[in-house]
C-alpha cells in the first residue's frame, strides 16, 4: 500500500497541497480552515460584500463572463444556467447539490468539511445574482462531518449577520437551510434531488418537461448547482472574471478539483488548472500522483467518475478539456480518475462498478431497473468462470436495450479501433442505467480477451436421431 504524506489512518486529509494557483482550496492548509475566524482572516465574505456593492444583474454578468463550468458532471456554465428561469415566475429557489456519491469522486465533501463558509458565501452570491429567495443545501446523508461543519458554519454565519435577514445590513435577505439525505446515489441527479427534498422517494423526473430551471422544487423555477461550482464564486467576485479566465483555457477557465484513486503512487485530490493539465501530467507528474504504484504499467483508467467510458494509455495526453475528451469517447464528469495497473482483473473491476449502478438504480424505469441487474448477474457469472460465450454477446444486447445505437468508447491503436464519441443515446430517464453499462461496454471493447479467457466454451454435443 502506498503512503500519502499526512495520509495516516484514521484522518487522512485526501487533499494534497501544491503550489499551483488555488481558487477553492486556498485555506485547506490551515488546521482551522473551517472556522469563521479563519475565514474572515483570509478574505472571507469579501466576495459577497463586493457582490452586494453591485446590482444583481452585474453580478450575474460577471459570473456569465467567467464561464464557470458546472462541476457536477455535465459541465454546463453556471451563469447561463441561472438565465434559464422563465421570466416573471416567483419564487425561485437554489438547491445545492452536496450529494456527492459518484464512484471515485470526492471534492465536494472536502469543500464542505474544510471550507464551509466559502460554500455559504458562494450560495449567497448565487441567490443574490439570480434572485433566488431561499437556498437548500442538500448534503449527502453519510457525510456526518460535512453536515456538522456546515451546520456550525451556518450557525456562526447567521449569528454574525452573513445569512438571513438583511445580510450585511443590506436589503438582501435569504435563508440557507441545511438539508441532509439518507443514502441513495441517484439523488445526486438534480431532479431526483428535488424529489428527495420534497420528501419523496428520490426518483428522477423526466426532462422535458421537468427541467429544474423551469419546473423544479415545488414546481417553481429552481437552480441546482454543485458544491464546487458555488465554491468558485467568492474568489470570482473578489478577483473578477478577467482574473478567473486568465487561469486555464478559454473554453475551460479556472481550476477544478480532481480525485485520483486506485493504483497510483500518490492518490489524492488535486486542484488543477482546467483545460491544460493532461491525464499524463496528473498520473505521472511529480507534483501529482508520481506514477503507477510499484512501477507497474498503466492498464486503463476511468477519466470522469464511475459512469465514464474507460481510457487506456493511448489517451494519456488528452487535457482536461471537454471538447477533446468527448470526441475521444468519454467524459470529464465529476473530476474523478480511477487508475488500474497491469495487475488489475478487468472483468472484476468492471463488475464492481456495474454492481454499484445496479444497486443504486431507483427502480423507476424498466431498462435501468431490470437491465442493470441483469448486466450485473451475467457479469458475475462470467467473473466467476461460469459464463458462456453467449453471455458476452448478451451483455451487449442488454446494453443495447438500455442505450440504443453505438455506445461511446475510446480508440485503441493495438486493437485497431476508432473512438465512438460521447455522449450516448439512452432509453432510460436518467444516466444511472447507462452508467451500469458503461464499464461493461468499455471493458468488453478494450479487453475482450480477458473475458474470453474466463468463459467456458460451449461444447456442442452432436445429437444423433434415435430411430
Amino acid at each position, binding site marked *: 500500500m502506498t503512503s500519502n504524506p499526512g495520509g495516516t489512518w484514521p484522518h487522512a486529509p485526501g487533499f494534497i497541497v501544491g503550489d499551483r494557483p488555488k481558487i477553492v482550496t486556498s485555506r485547506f492548509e490551515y488546521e482551522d480552515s473551517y472556522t469563521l475566524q479563519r475565514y474572515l482572516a483570509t478574505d472571507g465574505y469579501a466576495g459577497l460584500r463586493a457582490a452586494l456593492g453591485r446590482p444583481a444583474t452585474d453580478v450575474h454578468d460577471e459570473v456569465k463572463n467567467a464561464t464557470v463550468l458546472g462541476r457536477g458532471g455535465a459541465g454546463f456554465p453556471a451563469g447561463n444556467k441561472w438565465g434559464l428561469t422563465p421570466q416573471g415566475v416567483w419564487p425561485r429557489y437554489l438547491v445545492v447539490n452536496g450529494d456527492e456519491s459518484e464512484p471515485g469522486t470526492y471534492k465536494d465533501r472536502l469543500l464542505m468539511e474544510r471550507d464551509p463558509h466559502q460554500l455559504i458565501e458562494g450560495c449567497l452570491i448565487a441567490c443574490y445574482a439570480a434572485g433566488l429567495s431561499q437556498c437548500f443545501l442538500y448534503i449527502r446523508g453519510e457525510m456526518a462531518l460535512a453536515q456538522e461543519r456546515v451546520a456550525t458554519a451556518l450557525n456562526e454565519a447567521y449569528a454574525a449577520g452573513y445569512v438571513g435577514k438583511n445580510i450585511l445590513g443590506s436589503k438582501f435577505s435569504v435563508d440557507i437551510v441545511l438539508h441532509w439525505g439518507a443514502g441513495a446515489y441517484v439523488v445526486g441527479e438534480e431532479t431526483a434531488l428535488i424529489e428527495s427534498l420534497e420528501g419523496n422517494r428520490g426518483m428522477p423526473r*423526466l426532462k*422535458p418537461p421537468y427541467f429544474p430551471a423551469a419546473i423544479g422544487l415545488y414546481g417553481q423555477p429552481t437552480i441546482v448547482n454543485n458544491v464546487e461550482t458555488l465554491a468558485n464564486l467568492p474568489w470570482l467576485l473578489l478577483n473578477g472574471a478577467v482574473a478567473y479566465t486568465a487561469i486555464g483555457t478559454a473554453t475551460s477557465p479556472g481550476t477544478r478539483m480532481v480525485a485520483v484513486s486506485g493504483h497510483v503512487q500518490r492518490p489524492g485530490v488535486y486542484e488543477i488548472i482546467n483545460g491544460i493539465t493532461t491525464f499524463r501530467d496528473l498520473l505521472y507528474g511529480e507534483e501529482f500522483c508520481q506514477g503507477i504504484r510499484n512501477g507497474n504499467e498503466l492498464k486503463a483508467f476511468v477519466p470522469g467518475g464511475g459512469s465514464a467510458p474507460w481510457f487506456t494509455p493511448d489517451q494519456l495526453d488528452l487535457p482536461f478539456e471537454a471538447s477533446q475528451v468527448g470526441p475521444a469517447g468519454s467524459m470529464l464528469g465529476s473530476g474523478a480518475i480511477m487508475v488500474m495497473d497491469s495487475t488489475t482483473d478487468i472483468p472484476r473491476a468492471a463488475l464492481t462498478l456495474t454492481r454499484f449502478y445496479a444497486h443504486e438504480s431507483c*427502480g423507476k424505469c*424498466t431498462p435501468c431497473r*431490470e*437491465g442493470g441487474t441483469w448486466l450485473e448477474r451475467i457479469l458475475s457469472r462470467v467473473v466467476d468462470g461460469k459464463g458462456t460465450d453467449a453471455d458476452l454477446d448478451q451483455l451487449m444486447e442488454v446494453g443495447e436495450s438500455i442505450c440504443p445505437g453505438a455506445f461511446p468508447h475510446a480508440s485503441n491503436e493495438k486493437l485497431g479501433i476508432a473512438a465512438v464519441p460521447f455522449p450516448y443515446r439512452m432509453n432510460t430517464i436518467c444516466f444511472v442505467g447507462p452508467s451500469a453499462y458503461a464499464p461493461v461496454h468499455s471493458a468488453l471493447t478494450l479487453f475482450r480477451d480477458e473475458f474470453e479467457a474466463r468463459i467456458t466454451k460451449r461444447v456442442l454435443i452432436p445429437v444423433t436421431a434415435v430411430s
Partner: protein
Amino acid sequence: MTTIDTNTESSEMPEKDPNAVSITINGRTVEAQKGEFIIAAADRADEFIPRFCYHPRMSSVGMCRQCLVEVEGPRGPMMVVSCMTPVAEGQVVRTETPQVKRAQEGMIELLLANHPLDCPVCDKGGECPLQDQAFSHGAGESRFVEEKRHYEKPIAISELVFLDRERCILCDRCTRFADEVAGDPLISFTQRGNNTQVMTFPDEPFASYFSGNVVQICPVGALTAEPYRFKARPWDLEQRESTCTTCSVGCRTVVQSSRDELLRYQGVDSDPVNWGWLCDRGRFNFQSVNSEDRLENPQTKAGDSYATTTWSAALDTISRTIRHATPGSVAILGGARGTNEDAFMWAQLADALGVTMRDAQLDDGLPASIFSYPQATIDAACSAGTVILLAPDMKEELPVLHIRLRDAAEKKKIRIIEISARETGLTKHAWRSVRAESGTSVTAVQQLLADSAIAAQLASGPVVVVAGRANLAEDAAHTMAAVDAVLAGVQNASVLPVLRRGNVRGALSLGLAPQSGKDAVAILEASARGQVECLILLGADPMNDIADADLARRGIAGAKFVVAIDTFLTQSAAHADIVLPAAAYGEKDGTTMNLEGRVTNVVQKITPRGTSRADWMIAAELGLLLGHDANVTTLADVQKLMGKKVPGFGATTTSVAVKRDGIVVTVPTPTRTSFVAPTITPRNSYEFRVDVSRKLYDRAVGTITSPALANLATGVSITIHPLDLERVGAAIGANVRVSNAHSSIVLPVQSNEKVPRGTAVIPFNQPGADVRELIRHGDSVVDVRIESM
C-alpha cells in the same frame, strides 16, 4: 336547459382551432391539440403504440419506456417516450422503424425478465396487456435464464384486493390512482431499484372505496379482486355495456357474465360522467344479483310464513284488492331502483287508477321541485368558477362524483365552498369550508354572501350549487331554503341535485313524484290512520329507509293490504300480503336517468331469477287485469309510448341512450316553490345536535347480500368532539345512552376533533342500535342528550 347530445358530431366545420396542430405519424397526417401527448394523438389515429404505465386519465410518468418512438429532430431521429412528449406543429413521428422495434422488443424482454410466466393460472391471462403486447411487440423469446424475483404471493392488501408482487411490473398505475384519483395514498412504492415493490404500510390496509379500479387498470395480474379471483377466464366472459344504478351518478360499466351468472363489472370511460372509474360498492355488488336469497316466485302470506303461488293467482288477488278498494286509498311507494320504463309504466297505471299517493323517495332526499331550478351537469359543476356544496358527503354517497369534483378542485378548475355540519371527503379540497350546525345553513349562506372575498369569487364565473340531503335528522326544507338563498343572492347560479338512489330522478321525472303534497311521509301517516287499503312497495323498504322508524312501523302496520315487489324479502317486504319477485339489475333491459337527467341504457345480461319479471311488465299485466290495457308487449312498445307521452323525453331519447354518454333530457317537473327554514326550538337539556348520514357501506340490501361487501359496514357509533367526550365522561368505545323526548338508544361513543363542539355524528342504517328511533318526521332538527353508563 338545452338538450345536449354529446355523441352527434356537428356537420359544420368550425373555424380553424388556434390550438390545432398537425403532425405526421408513420407518414400519415394527424390532427392534434396543443399540449396533447403523441400517444394520445396516435390513439385517435389508430396508430397503436404499446404502453404499460400510460393511462389517459392520469398524469404521465414515462416509467415503463415501452412507448418509445422516433421523432425527427434537428440532429436526426430521436427516441422519445410518446406518453410525455407533447405534439408540435410539423412533428414527424415514426413508431415502426427498426430502431423503435428494437427498443420496444428490448423493453418487453426486460419487463418479462422478472415476470413469472404463470399465465395459465393467472386471472389476467387472456386480457393481459403484458401478454398481448409481448405477442404483438415482443421478440418471441426471452434470454433471461437467471432466477426471477421472489416474494410471498399473493398478499391481501385489503378485504377486496390481493397483490402478487412477483407479477408486478412497477408501472405506478395503482399507486398513482390511489394518490391522484382516489386521494387515498395508502399504497406506495417501497424499497428501491430491483427490489422496488408496491406495498401498504404494515397493518394499514388499502381501505379505499375505489380499490377495485386498481385491479382494472393493472396491466398484469398483480392485482386481483377477491370476488373475481379464479372465477372465470376472460375468453369465457360475455359482456354488454350498461350503466351502474347503485347510486345516481350513472357510471358506465360493462356487465360480464359466464354461463348465465354475473361475474364482474368493469368501468367504462364515459367522458361526461365517470371517466372509467367505479366505486367498490357499485363494482362488487353484482354478487347480490347472484345471491341464493333472491326471491324466485310470488309469495302469499299464510299466517307467519309465506307460501309460493303463481303469478296469475298473485296478480288476480292484487287486482281484486285494488278494484274493491275505496277510491283514493291505493298508494305506491318507490320506483327509484328500477328503470325509466318500470317507473313510467307504474305511473301510467297510477294515472289510470287515479292513484295520487305516490312517491319514489322515502323522505330521504329533497322535494322533487329541486329539478325545477336551473340545472347543471357534472361537467358544468366541474368547470364552474365556484361550486357550493349543500350536500351530503359525496365520498360516502356518490363516490365517483366525489372523484370528479376532487379532480376539478385539485386541478384548480373550480373553487369549492362547502357548507356542512362536519368535515366531509371534499373538505380538504375546498377553498372555503364553513361549519354550519344542522338547521343553520340558511344563516351560513347569508353570512357567506355578505363576505366581500366570497362575493368576488362568486362573481368571477359560473356558480353551481350541489344540493342534496346532508342530514337525515334535519328537515329537508333547511337545505331547500339554503339553495333558495344562494339563488337569490347569486345571478345565474344553477343546481346539480344529488339525490342518491339509483334512478330516483328518472322515477320522479316519469310520474312517480308526489302529487298535491302527498309524499312518502303523508302516505305513511295516512296508512297509519287506516286510510290506505292497498300499499304497493315498488322496490321500497321504508322499514329500513324512512328516517322516522316509528312512522315506518305504523304506516306498514296500518295498511290494509301490502304488496311488495322486490328482489329480496326485505324488512318491509316481510310485512307484505303478497310478494312479487322482481327482475334485478342485469336481468332486464331499459334506460335509467342519472342525477343530471342523463338518460343511458341498462342491459339484460342474464336470465331473470326464477319467475321474476321486470317491474314494467307487472304494471302492464295489472293494468290489463284492471281494464286499463296500455297495449304494450315489448320494451320497445313501452319506449314508444314514453316518447309519445312524456314531454321532453322525445322519440329519439331511448335510441340515443344506448350510446355511451347517453343524452341529457329535461322533462317537466313540479313547479318551483320557495322554502323557508323551519324554526328551531331551544335545545334545553338536549345539548347535542345530531347529524345523521349514510356511509358507503351500510345495511342496504345490495350490500348485505354481496358477500365481499357485507362485512365492510363500520357499525353504528356516535362521534363527538374530544372535549365534549371529556364532559360526557365516557371512555372512547364505551357505550353511552343517547336520548331525547322520542326515545333512547345505547351505542358506542367515539371522538374526533374535527366534529364541532355540540354536534354528534351518527351514521345511518348501520348494524347496531337504530338511530332512527330518535328521529320524528317534521322535526326541524334533532337534539339529544348523551350520558355515560
